[in-house]
């Protein structure tokens, strides 16, 4: 018995929309099974993870607070992923945005600087994230280095930079030796929405980013260029689209939005710089982006759904003594389910009895050599331009109909 995939003749729109929902349900069922295996009640966990936060007005506010950085980062990643570029270093860009913007907050601390400080901090946050995001993009464009590994490595570097600053030069001298900066002045703090409460202006940034992205991707030439570059790199080149400029642009955009997310979180939530300013938003946002099917409105919904797992995880830790790592594991599982469901939208999965449709008997040795020789030609064509580097992204993996490698 084995599994067999057959491309679907046409992809139903309903299936497209339902796939992430189904993935969420499957992930929930598996997680429930794991909790049951741990000797806990899955129903009690479900109440704490889902029903609890959704029925409590305070928790609903918290939901938006947690969804804000996720949505901002994920919406930025959408640009990269649509162009088939793998920025997996958003966590680092988030940190560097907070570092550059936080610098201004510390510079103006205890001075009578006016209300221009926090808007300037946000701009610096965008700049910090964008510049940091441009490093892997430049390395890819200039030297052909895979952006996957470099962007990830830079996450560790950014975290070490923040660690150094908050333990060293930026440490609050009156902070009893705790590794943290001074508390930001009111002028360096994001205004709250609705007076009291925990909701801050950052949520509006996320909404604006979502609407702007919906417009850019759906209605502009740039959005069209991204899709063509991602799904058909050769066509993009024939169309005269500059892949290098696109690469730089999408990394700057996604880095900038991640930086804005980091700065908003530090200025609106934490109120000071400390060695750790993120529970992994930059990585979780990858799950959010795919759960939202790289669609701005989908990402709005996905960020709220995934924020729920963060809040549920926190209350489950307090109420059920379930470790926070369960949340991380769930987010990884969710991403796997989403990608699997995505594939099932374009392929029909059949279970066939052993023997059916198997490839023929292996050929003699000499002909196997030909198979190896064929790649020399195949590789030369397919590899040209489209994949400047070995660990470059799969050529046409995002296009549902693309059967990678079949295209010379």
């Amino acid at each position, binding site marked *: 018995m084995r599994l067999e995939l057959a491309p679907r003749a046409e992809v139903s729109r309903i299936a497209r929309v339902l796939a992430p929902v189904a993935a969420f349900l499957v992930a929930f069922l598996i997680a429930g099974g794991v909790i049951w295996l741990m000797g806990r009640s899955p129903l009690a966990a479900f109440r704490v993870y889902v029903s609890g936060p959704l029925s409590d007005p305070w928790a609903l506010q918290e939901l938006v607070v947690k969804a804000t950085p996720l949505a901002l980062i994920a919406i930025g990643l959408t640009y990269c992923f649509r162009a088939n570029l*793998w920025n997996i270093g958003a966590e680092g860009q988030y940190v560097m945005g907070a570092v550059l913007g936080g610098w201004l907050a510390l510079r103006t601390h205890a001075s009578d600087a006016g209300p221009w400080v926090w808007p300037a901090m946000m701009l610096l946050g965008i700049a910090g994230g964008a510049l940091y995001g441009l490093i892997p993009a430049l390395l890819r464009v200039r030297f052909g280095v895979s952006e996957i*590994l470099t962007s990830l490595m830079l996450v*560790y570097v950014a975290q070490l930079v923040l660690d150094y600053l908050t333990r060293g030069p930026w440490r609050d001298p009156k902070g009893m030796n705790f590794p943290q900066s001074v508390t930001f002045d009111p002028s360096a703090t994001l205004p709250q929405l609705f007076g009291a409460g925990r909701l801050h202006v950052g949520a509006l940034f996320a909404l604006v980013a979502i609407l702007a992205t919906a417009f850019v991707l759906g209605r502009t030439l740039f959005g069209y260029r991204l899709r063509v570059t991602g799904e058909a790199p050769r066509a993009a080149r024939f169309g005269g689209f500059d892949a290098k400029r696109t690469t730089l642009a999408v990394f700057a955009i996604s880095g900038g939005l991640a930086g804005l997310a980091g700065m908003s979180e530090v200025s609106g939530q934490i109120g000071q710089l400390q060695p750790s300013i993120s529970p992994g938003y930059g990585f979780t946002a990858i799950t959010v982006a795919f759960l939202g099917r790289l669609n701005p409105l989908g990402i709005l919904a996905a960020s709220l759904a995934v924020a729920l797992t963060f809040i549920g995880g926190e209350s489950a830790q307090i109420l059920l003594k379930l470790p926070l790592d369960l949340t991380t594991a769930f987010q990884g599982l969710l991403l*796997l389910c989403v990608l699997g469901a995505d594939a099932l939208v374009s392929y029909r999965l059949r279970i066939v009895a052993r023997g059916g449709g198997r490839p023929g008997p292996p050929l003699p040795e000499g002909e196997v050599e030909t198979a190896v020789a064929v790649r020399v030609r195949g590789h030369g064509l397919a590899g040209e331009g489209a994949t400047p580097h070995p660990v470059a992204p799969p050529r046409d*993996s995002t296009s549902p109909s693309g059967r990678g490698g079949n295209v010379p």
Partner: protein
Amino acid sequence: MTPLEAILLTIVTASTPLLIAAIGELVAERAGVLNLGVEGMMAMGAACGFAAAIGFDSTAAGVATAILAGAGMAAIFAFAVLGLAANQVGSGLALTILGLGLSGLIGAPFVGARRDPIPHLHVPGLADLPGIGRLLFGQDAFVYVALALAAAVALFLNRSRAGLTLRAVGENHVSAHVLGLPVLRTRFLAILFGGACAGLAGVYLSLVYTRFWSPGMTAGRGWIALALVVFAAWRPAYALAGAYLFGAATVLQLHAQAGQIGLPSQLLSAVPYLATILTLVLLSIGRGRAVGAPGSLGAPFVPDR
């Protein structure tokens, strides 16, 4: 033991997990599968292996469990990318996130536990040779296993029919399929092998390198192993050299931190990551274009019929 000898010994210890994980990933990539989940599989190997070693009070049980844990994680990945033709980069990332989370769950009860050092080889006479004695003849079993693994994989890939099949599948899966080679089965086995190696590399960290378990103890080594495969141009012999080079960089960085040379410790901690980036850049300049990368690397395969 001279200080130089001590440093060389720690370099071997730091390099071994990188070598094992890189060799496993190398095989998967030669079969055309890019598995970015090395970090997660290593974390699972470290946690499950340590838990089993404490639970059964046996290093062998720990190692076996770690290998199974790594291969089990790899099987999940294989189901997604082979069974469902899901995106490999995304699925690999998901595997890393999943592995880091799960390993935290599994390892949590074992924080604070310690294991005794595992026995080292001691060839009478030879191991007492001055200078190179302990370096060559007094290591733990993992070191020799790692070296044997690299040699065996090199032989397998270049000298065996099955290795030729694996390379053909990785270079051009369409041609391989047309020739009747079992593309998906070959890839499945290669992915499992990569997972088993990552699990073994992980348990080396928790049972030999630190001898305790802590959350996030893999600290990006899985990612460095991935970079090593690129560095090695997909060849086992170069992976061996690369792993020892990176191990040396890590150890020298630690010694610099201990030696109080006046640089911030965070800067030195960043050295392995910065060195990885720099190496990738220098390699790309040197090679011009991607050399040695399997032609079908990262592309999903759905047989036409």
